Every structure is written in structure tokens, then in C-alpha cells.
């Protein structure tokens, strides 16, 4: 444990990076996953199939292989994302590693986001939309007042599972040059092999705290939108 406390700066920095990866790729994959879900359930059948192909492909590929694509294969094709290192916003700039990791995490997670969204929409019984039309609601009204609120309710639990999986998946970035929690834990263990159990527990607790925070936030959200049935 001493090794963690004497390097507490590194510990916090590592989890800061983990949270940074989680937030950036979480938001990006919610957006991209929602677009995919719209294509997936939309009326154009070729786009349905294209989105389904995307989901099948990325769900069955190990995240590590997507990282290898982004970090090892893409530079050969001339995409190394080095240009982001020249962009500076308010004294901050991000490394190419960070951008690559976020893209890989987003490509992977959005497939799961798409499936969660789709299952949420499918959970709304057809009769609900029909009843909405029967009482004379327009399409947008029946969407806004009847279908989407129910779909949102059904989406929260699977979406939370997806986000929790994303928190844990950010650890894969350790293998590709990000000094996030797992990489830092490995480096600390390397230098203090006698304290490896304490170091492991300290880092595991860090992850568990993040997971619990997300989980509790989702319970709060779920309770808020819950209705008696």
C-alpha cells in the first residue's frame, strides 16, 4: 500500500486519465450509437442492413483488435492522428494516443449502445403507438408523448451495463501507450513487487468506486422516470 500512497499523484492522474477516456468515448459512442440505432430501426432497408452488419462485426471483434487496427494498421494507411497534437485549446492539448484510444473505444462501444437503444424501442408495445394514433395524436406527438418516454425508461438498465463495460474497457488502452490506471498499476508493481497485493487492491477499489458512482446515478435516474404499472 505504501507504494500507492507515496505515488498518490500518479494514482490520481491515472484514474483521471481513465475517467477522461470514459467520458470522451462515452459521449462519442452514445452519439454514434444513437445514429446507428436510428439507421437500424429506420425505414430504409439498405441502411438497416448496413447498421446490422456494423453491429455484428464490431460486437464480435475483440476490443484489442480494434486497438491494433487504430494503433498499428492505421498509421500504415497514413492516419496517425498526429495532427491533434498541434491543436491547443486553452493551454491543453491531447496526444495522438488519446485520440486513437477514444476512437477505438467509441467504434466498439457504439455497437452495444445501438443494440441497447434498439431493445429499448422494441420494448414499447405496438399497441401504444396505435392507441396514440387512434386518439388523434400526430406522428411527432405520439413519438414525444407516448413512445420515446417509455423507450427511455426501458433503455436505462441496458445502457448502464454498456457504460460500466466501457469503464472497464478503457483499461485496454494501457497496452497502447496510455498511462491510465492499469498501466500505472503495472509500472508501480514493477517497482514494488513486494507490495503487489496492496497495489492491486488500491487500483481495483478505484475502478469499483467509478463503477458504483455510475451505477448509483443510473438508479437515481431510473427511480425518477419510474411509473407504477
Amino acid at each position, binding site marked *: 500500500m505504501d507504494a500507492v500512497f507515496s505515488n498518490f499523484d500518479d494514482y490520481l492522474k491515472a484514474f483521471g486519465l481513465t475517467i477522461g477516456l470514459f467520458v470522451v468515448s462515452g459521449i462519442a459512442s452514445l452519439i454514434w450509437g444513437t445514429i446507428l440505432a436510428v439507421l437500424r*430501426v*429506420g*425505414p*430504409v*432497408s*439498405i*441502411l438497416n442492413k*448496413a447498421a446490422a452488419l456494423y453491429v455484428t462485426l464490431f460486437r*464480435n*471483434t*475483440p*476490443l*484489442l*483488435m480494434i486497438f*491494433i*487496427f487504430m494503433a*498499428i*494498421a492505421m498509421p*500504415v*494507411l*497514413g492516419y496517425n492522428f498526429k495532427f491533434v497534437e498541434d491543436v491547443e485549446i486553452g493551454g491543453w492539448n491531447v496526444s495522438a494516443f488519446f485520440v486513437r484510444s477514444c476512437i477505438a473505444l467509441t467504434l466498439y462501444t457504439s455497437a452495444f449502445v445501438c443494440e441497447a437503444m434498439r431493445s429499448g*424501442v*422494441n420494448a*414499447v*408495445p*405496438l399497441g401504444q*403507438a396505435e392507441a396514440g394514433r387512434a386518439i388523434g395524436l400526430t*406522428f411527432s406527438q405520439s*413519438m414525444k408523448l407516448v*413512445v420515446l418516454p417509455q423507450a427511455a425508461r426501458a433503455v436505462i*438498465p441496458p445502457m*448502464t*451495463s454498456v457504460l*460500466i463495460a466501457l*469503464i*472497464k*474497457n478503457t*483499461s*485496454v488502452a*494501457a*497496452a497502447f501507450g496510455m498511462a491510465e*490506471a*492499469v498501466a500505472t*498499476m*503495472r509500472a508501480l*508493481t*514493477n517497482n514494488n*513487487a513486494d507490495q*503487489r*497485493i496492496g497495489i*492491486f487492491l488500491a*487500483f*481495483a477499489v478505484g*475502478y*469499483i468506486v467509478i*463503477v*458504483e458512482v*455510475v*451505477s448509483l446515478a*443510473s438508479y437515481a435516474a431510473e427511480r425518477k422516470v419510474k411509473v407504477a404499472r
Partner: protein
Amino acid sequence: MTTSVLFDAPGPKTVARHRAYTVVSVVALAALVAFAVWKLYDRSQLEYALWEPYVTPKYIQYVLVDGLLETLKMAFFSIIFAVVIGLFLGIGKLSDRAWIRWPAWLVVEFFRAAPVLLLMVFAFYLLAIGNGPLSPFWCVVIALTLYNGSVLAEVFRAGINAVPTGQSEAAYAIGMRKSQVMTSVLLPQGVKIMLPSIISQMVVALKDTSLGYYILAPGLTAVGKPIYLEFRNQVPTAIVITALYVIVNLILTWIATRVQKRLVGEKNPLELTRVGNLDGGRNT
């Protein structure tokens, strides 16, 4: 005509509009594919020399035997062990005794919330590095066993709970003991409900074996490296190895769907509680 909760059956105008969308999206998708192929061609990634290792028997054998087979072995061992551990933890979580239920809950929650890679690195430093007793192969198996075991504990718990209560009540009524009710009434019926989820978990385990790359374990991901270092064919290597993973996973998913249809019917799969549910293992 499939009906959807999202939109009405289209009229003639909408059909025409959808046709226009179809044309636009076909063009866009074709352009995307063409761009990808052109990019590969432009960077001379389609040259035969780069793909040659993947049609040479020596390298095919290397990829399949040292890569795919090792990956399958790791996934196989970890699922077998995970089923055993998951069975104990799952039944432990359902125990009437708090001193069994709480530790089981704690273990399950801990290993479900910690990343697999963290477990792997820890197992690697604890058991493999230097003159440790185990090879990285077994460190991967241990980490995956702990993680998948805790996920399967939830599967077992949910599966046993999915058996109608009348079954266990009837068993108690004819005078069976608790252990008899579990082993001869609940588990045999629960297994049918759990089997699809267990097979789907195999896909997760198989994908996670690739994380062994970080602790120098063998497997499909690891065999790529010497090949692309020798032939400088990073892109073809990534494509071939990803394709192998996808094919194996699709086969497993197909089996899971078949089993689901055969044993459970079209009903929804098991509903598992989330990580961090804070109920102290009391959920029933």
C-alpha cells in the same frame, strides 16, 4: 409488411421518398467501400507479397495452431472453471445463511466491477513473472475464470430464480431437504434456462483472451506480431486475425441462438442484476 412502433405503413409518396433515400445511401455506402479499397490500393496494401503469408501453409499452420488453438484452449478452460466457480457463488448468493450469502455477494461484485486486464496483470505479477509457477497462459485463464465465474454466478442465480416457485414448494411438500430441492428439482430445470447465457458468455471469454497480449500470453492476437514484424504487413494481418475472431464468435452465437430456440423458446433471455446493486446479495 413489418409493422413498427415507430412509423405507419408508408403511403405512395413515402414509398417514393424511401426509394430516393435508398439510392442515396447505396451510393454513399458504395463510395465508402470504394474509398477504403482505393486507400488500401494506394498504400499498396493489396500487393500479393503482403498477403502471401496467409496463403502459405507454414504460416497458416502457425496462425491456426499457435494462435487460434491456444485462444480456444484458453477460452475453453476458463469457461469450464468459471462454470464451476459460478455454480458455487450463484448458489451461495441464494443461501438462507447470511454468512454464506454476504461473502459470495462480495466476491461476485468485486470481480464483476474490476477490469479483466487488471486481474490479468495482477495474476501475471503474482504467479508468472520471474520464476513464478505458472505461464502467462494460465494467468489469462485465472483472470478470465474469476471474471466470468462472477458473471455466471449471476446467470445461475437468475436461472434458478426463473424456475416457477411451485416447483420448490412441491418438492418441500413431499419432504425433500434443501440440498435435494436444489440438486434434483431446481438445477436440472434451471440449466435449460441458463445454457444460452452460458454459451453467450463463451463469446465474451473468447474475445477477452485477446487481452493476454498485454502479459505476453500466446493466442491469435500474439501470433500477428512476429508476422507483421517480418513482412511489414500490418493491415493484412489485422484483417485476417480479426476475421478469424469474428468467424469463431459468429459460430458460437449461432449455437447459442439455436440452443435458446430449442430449450427456452422465443422468450427473452435471463435478466441479470447490474454490477453495484448495493442490495447485499438479498435480491431474489
